């Protein structure tokens, strides 16, 4: 009996959307106010969906303590109260939430071994969300 389990985490971070090889006017045209020189921030919500059979002894797809432990260490501690534009992870790349979604998917995909990864969905604001399923 395969069940999908989804857990939501929260972190706050800043970024600036800016291409170094474009002029100020071009950057402004592409990114609008997201290109403002000093950056801006969001409260991001990350929804991670894992799946698998429900273990008969525990009733669980995976232990939430394992998922929370991994997410706190690998996602929250890494991204909370940071400037995404300054992170080596995004060196030479614009830290849009599309890219953030792919990076966070890859972190779970490589490191989280307690259940099958289905999807990472990130809400940048209540109006914008992004999903990556690999």
């Amino acid at each position: 009996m395969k069940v999908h389990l989804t857990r939501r985490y929260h972190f706050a971070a800043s970024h600036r959307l800016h291409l170094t090889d474009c002029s100020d006017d071009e950057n402004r045209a592409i990114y609008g106010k997201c290109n403002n020189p000093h950056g801006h921030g969001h409260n991001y919500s990350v929804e991670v969906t894992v799946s698998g059979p429900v273990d008969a002894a525990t009733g669980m797809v995976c232990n939430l303590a394992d998922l929370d432990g991994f997410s706190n260490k690998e996602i929250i501690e890494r991204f909370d109260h940071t400037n995404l534009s300054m992170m080596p992870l995004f060196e030479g790349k614009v830290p849009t939430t599309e890219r953030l979604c792919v990076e966070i998917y890859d972190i779970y995909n490589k490191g989280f071994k307690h259940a099958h990864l289905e999807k990472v969905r990130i809400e940048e604001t209540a109006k914008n969300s992004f999903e990556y399923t690999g």
Partner: protein
Amino acid sequence: MIYLTRKAEFAASHYYHNPAFTPEENQRVFGKCANMNGHGHNYVLEVTVKGEVNDRTGFVVDLKELKDIMNREVVDAMDHRHLNKEVPEFAKAIPTTENIAIVAWKRLAPHMKVAKLHRVRVYENADLFADYYGEE
């Protein structure tokens, strides 16, 4: 084909305990959910059905009928109840969010005549939910 989702809420208590585990194992695996005095949540049940839109009514399913089935089979059975003690399926199975989704599916599926059950989603809180799509 169209998908329609109806939501309902219920409040219930539960604890996580496997009698085959030692007290230490129960504590290690289930953490504070193992407290035998139990604790509770406001659960949200989301039931998604799928089917064709009826030409005459414009419905994929009669919403009143779906609401009655959800209330009778799940909400009335679990609302303001202790899941371990009052819902027979949880006499043995541990009432995790995963298992509640499976139990809700099994209770609802036999009653879905016109539209087909597509997904049962159970929220334990805003930050945690389980989805069950039946046997795949």
